[in-house]
């Protein structure tokens, strides 16, 4: 096994991991703060990809098309996230777990068909701009330059979230709310507004992630299904509500994926499930989550 193969697999895994991180971070945040497991998170991610393509398509003659489409798609999704929170999500905060899960699960079905209706069944492809089309050479090893971009975005989001949670007043409130809703409410801070804000933020990141993913391969119906399961695994392994946990979990899953291609190509997903199951049995709150009585 030569070093070139190892390195390129490693980078592939890192890129995959970062992509998962972008999706899982919103999922983890929403669950950590609001205790809602958003089944539809990957579906909204996919909508982000589709929106990115639509926006890019109109501007594709311009060099900056992709770079503009990505944040725009993110913003559109933030708006959609806001609508969803206001119309649907906030009605089930006080409900039991099964009803919350069912609501977000129903959303998966609805969004799936809405995508079909809006964008049809054909695959969409975004042509990458020249800056990120070719390989970049890292100690003589060719690495897809778009992977580098994805990794950079992931790192940027990670740092951004970290700064937000650690350094801003709003972020402190969010962290406190993960810990104790009652306390935050008792301090006079409106919990509903925090929930809305967190949800919108989570969906914004998901939408942006989808847009970032769009130029990798093609955009297909049903991509969200495979991804949401992996995102769940990431959040379980890393620990709900923990930013560091989500990052670590994402990288672990990404690397498992990348390396299992080398010696057990059929088994990548199975391996991820097995690891997830082990964590759930041995340490249900994940590597970095807060221990609790289960």
């Amino acid at each position, binding site marked *: 096994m030569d070093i070139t193969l190892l390195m390129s697999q490693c980078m592939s895994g890192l890129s995959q991991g970062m992509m998962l991180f972008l999706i899982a971070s919103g999922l983890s945040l929403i669950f950590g703060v609001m205790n809602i497991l958003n089944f539809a998170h990957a579906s909204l991610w996919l909508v982000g990809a589709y929106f990115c393509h639509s926006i890019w398509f109109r501007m594709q003659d311009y060099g900056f098309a992709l770079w503009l489409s990505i944040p725009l798609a993110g913003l559109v999704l933030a708006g959609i996230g806001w609508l969803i929170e206001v119309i649907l999500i906030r009605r089930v905060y006080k409900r039991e777990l*099964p009803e919350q899960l069912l609501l977000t699960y*129903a959303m998966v*079905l*609805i969004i799936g068909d809405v995508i079909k*209706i809006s964008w049809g069944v054909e695959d969409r492809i975004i042509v990458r701009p020249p800056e990120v089309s070719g390989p970049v050479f890292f100690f003589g090893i060719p690495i897809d330059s778009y992977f580098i971009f994805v990794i950079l975005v992931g790192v940027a989001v990670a740092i951004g979230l970290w700064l937000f949670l650690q350094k801003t007043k709003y972020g402190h409130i969010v962290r406190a709310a993960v810990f104790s809703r009652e306390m935050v409410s008792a301090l006079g801070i409106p919990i509903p507004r925090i929930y809305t804000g967190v949800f919108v933020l989570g969906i914004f990141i998901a939408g942006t992630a989808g847009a970032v993913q769009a130029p990798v391969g093609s955009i297909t119906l049903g991509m969200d299904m495979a991804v949401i399961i992996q995102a769940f695994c990431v959040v379980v392994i890393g620990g709900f509500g923990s930013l560091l946990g989500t990052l670590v979990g994402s990288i672990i899953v990404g690397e498992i994926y990348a390396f299992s291609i080398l010696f057990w190509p059929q088994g990548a997903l199975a391996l991820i*499930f097995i690891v997830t199951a082990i964590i*759930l049995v041995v340490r249900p709150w994940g590597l970095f989550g807060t221990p609790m009585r289960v």
Partner: protein
Amino acid sequence: MKKYLFLGLIYALALVLPLFIGEFWIHVAVEILILGLFAVSFNMIFGYMGQLSFGHAAYYGVGAYVTGMLMVKASVPLAICLPLSMIGAGICALIIGYFCVRLTGIYFAILTMAFGQLIYYIIFKWYSFTRGDDGLQGIIAPPLLFTVNAYYYFTLFIATAALIVMWYISESPFGYTMRAIRDNADRTRFIGINVRKYMLINFVIAGMFAGLAGALWGPFNRSIAPDLTNWHHSGTPVFMTVIGGPFGFFGPMIGSVIYTFLMAFVTGFTEYWPLTIGLVIIFVVLFVPGGVLGFYESKIKGFRSKVPKSEETIP
């Protein structure tokens, strides 16, 4: 008394159904029965024990594959396949359940889903054994049951027997212990019950009946595919139970009637069934949280007695 009369009436109706409706709708009726059985087995874990299993389709699928493969590859008669399917599904549930019952709430839900996906994955990828994504074709019912009507009566008979057994279990001390675990697992430990062990037993029983439902599906559909085990299919009994109401024993069956009917109807003129059922579920969750049975209990019979939480459960 009134309840039994009502049930008797429904059953009599079911017995003479083929005289009144065409073959297509008898087909639908068989589907209602099989999926209803699946949903009732799910409710043993959900409504009675209070846990949400998002991987119940795994046992349905295992049951389907045991019967399917035995019939296609070894020409084992259906009558023997059925109990074997139950045993196969039960063993699966035993292994998976052993780990799942250590958790509750959302962790239980996710772990059951993860295991469900693992089973799906195994069946999907193990091409040499299960023919993977191609599925298993040519599962032919025995000549006696070859017509739709015959298979309908067969399914009706098996489903009724299974329902009676599950009914007795739900009204037994074991069934009440399940309710106790649902309502206050801690307390139940303190009256001397090994909660984990009991949860596992219930999980296995529920899995066995799901396996039975799956076994009935193969010869009916003539073919089976790994899709039967994935998490989407696991959602079906959840939907049915929620629509019908997790309240009473027959809630999931009522849900199956509504769901299957709706699906047969809607898929007749549009491909957007997921959109439809998604909207229905949202509607039920937001506005009719107790399902049909809940609606009936509260509006027509008047409140039985106020319950402390907003959610009603099986009394």
